[in-house]
């Protein structure tokens, strides 16, 4: 494994009970890179993120995080290698206040942002810090879900559909946040339906179909491969 690789997924198969969801995923993400997993609904992108964290029934193959093999590790041990996860359903705990949600996660690495810095990045959260998680708007929940993994010092961020169902102004704010994270050297795997959002940020796009990677596009090739990509995504 080269020194620049932070995540290497090799021949990853994942199962929920009897159903076989991933059929040999192969991809790598280098330190400081932002890659997207593109594909139609049900192609296995969310399952890929969950498999990296060990949140599926069973997985085989290899997932190297920061040089460590994680297949066979318990989810909390994998995360402690420096992984931050922003789930599709956002995963804000309804019975905790916004601030409790923000400070709940144990540190998984050094150099996390302070609560104060996070409130500066997402000012709405400061006003809403006493509100129960269940009372936050979709946009506030999404910002909170992002903010809490930035506090713990995670270096590899797995972001699942962070713009889904949000107003354009919030999508723009999230775009700025993700861009600034990339500039700060974070490594990001982005599962995204909103291709316009993803295309402006990513170094590389992996296309997922039926639980495996079927194609890869570098950012510089995107312009000339647009037709091909659109046929994959069916847009």
């Amino acid at each position, binding site marked *: 494994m080269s020194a620049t690789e932070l995540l290497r997924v090799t021949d990853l198969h994942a199962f929920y009970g009897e159903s076989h969801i991933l059929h040999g995923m192969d991809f790598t993400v280098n330190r400081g890179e932002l890659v997207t997993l593109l594909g139609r609904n049900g192609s296995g992108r969310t399952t890929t993120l969950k498999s990296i964290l060990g949140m599926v029934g069973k997985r085989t193959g290899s997932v190297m995080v920061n040089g460590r093999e994680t297949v066979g590790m318990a989810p909390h041990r994998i*995360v402690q290698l420096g992984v931050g996860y922003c789930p599709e359903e956002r*995963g804000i*705990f*309804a019975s905790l206040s916004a601030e409790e949600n923000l400070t*709940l996660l144990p540190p998984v690495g050094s150099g996390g942002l302070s609560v104060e810095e996070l409130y500066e990045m997402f000012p709405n959260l400061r006003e809403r810090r006493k509100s129960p998680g269940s009372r936050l708007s979709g946009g506030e929940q999404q910002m909170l879900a992002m903010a809490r993994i930035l506090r713990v010092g995670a270096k590899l961020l797995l972001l699942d559909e962070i713009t889904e169902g949000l107003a354009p102004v919030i999508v723009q704010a999230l775009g700025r946040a993700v861009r600034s994270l990339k500039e700060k050297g974070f490594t990001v795997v982005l599962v995204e339906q909103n291709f316009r959002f993803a295309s402006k940020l990513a170094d590389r796009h992996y296309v997922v179909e039926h639980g495996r990677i079927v194609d890869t596009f570098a950012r510089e090739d995107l312009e000339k491969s647009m037709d091909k990509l659109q046929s994959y995504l069916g847009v």
Partner: protein
Amino acid sequence: MQALFGQLLVGLINGSFYALLSLGLSIIFGLVNVVNFAHGALYMTGAFFAWIGLSSLGIGYWPALLLSPLAVGVLGVVVERTMLRRLYQLDNLYGLLLTFGLTLIIEGLFHHQYGNSGNSFPVPEALQGGSNLGFMYLPKYRAWVVLVSLLVCFASWFVIERTKLGAYLRAGTENPRLLQAFGVNVPLMMTLTFGFGVALAGFAGVMAAPIYQVSPSMGSSLIIVVFAVVVIGGMGSIFGSIVTGVGLGLVEGLTKYLYPPAAATVVFAIMAVVLLLRPAGLFGREK
């Protein structure tokens, strides 16, 4: 009037035990998702540990108040690690069956060793006697039981609702898999939570020893009512367990004064009504 207050005091004491036991059941059900049928047997075990400690080792009430729940808690940790843990992927009916089996085994063991007759446990010297309040006679030990139970319940509620440790518990109760995906050692939390919940039962057992006879069946007669309390309060609601526990104890006491024959069934009648009107319980949220 004396009789009314006397019955209300008995109700308040029973209610204190209901609250302690249903609190433990609720915490366990919330995070571990197991209906711990062995709760009554472990309450009995707590009382027996205290009695054995006193009669064979000369360990008094005060050390027993700490040591006995600790021992029951350790027993719970062992049970969780070696048996319960294997059932989490299955329907929670299996957890109920396992703990029901454990109840039979634990009760059988004590029954075999110590027979079925009750053993009395003396009230500790410092809490003997009582005072006449004018409208009723209040034995010191009973006042102590009510006070300490409520204190322990309140402290548990405070820790769960107001501290970081409690935030973990609340988050884990909502979504344990997600909490683990944020780097929290949820399996360890479940072990410790189960241990703490049954330690509360052991604690209630020691508290009960000087009031009720220490016998192998003392848990099974109580636990049926406690399950009714948990259902009325709402499965998994901490606050609901405490309030419902104390409240139903008082209702029982009041019924004993107003219409004694109904005292044993009033809790179940209330349970039936609550299930009809609010299936999730008075303080429960629909899942």
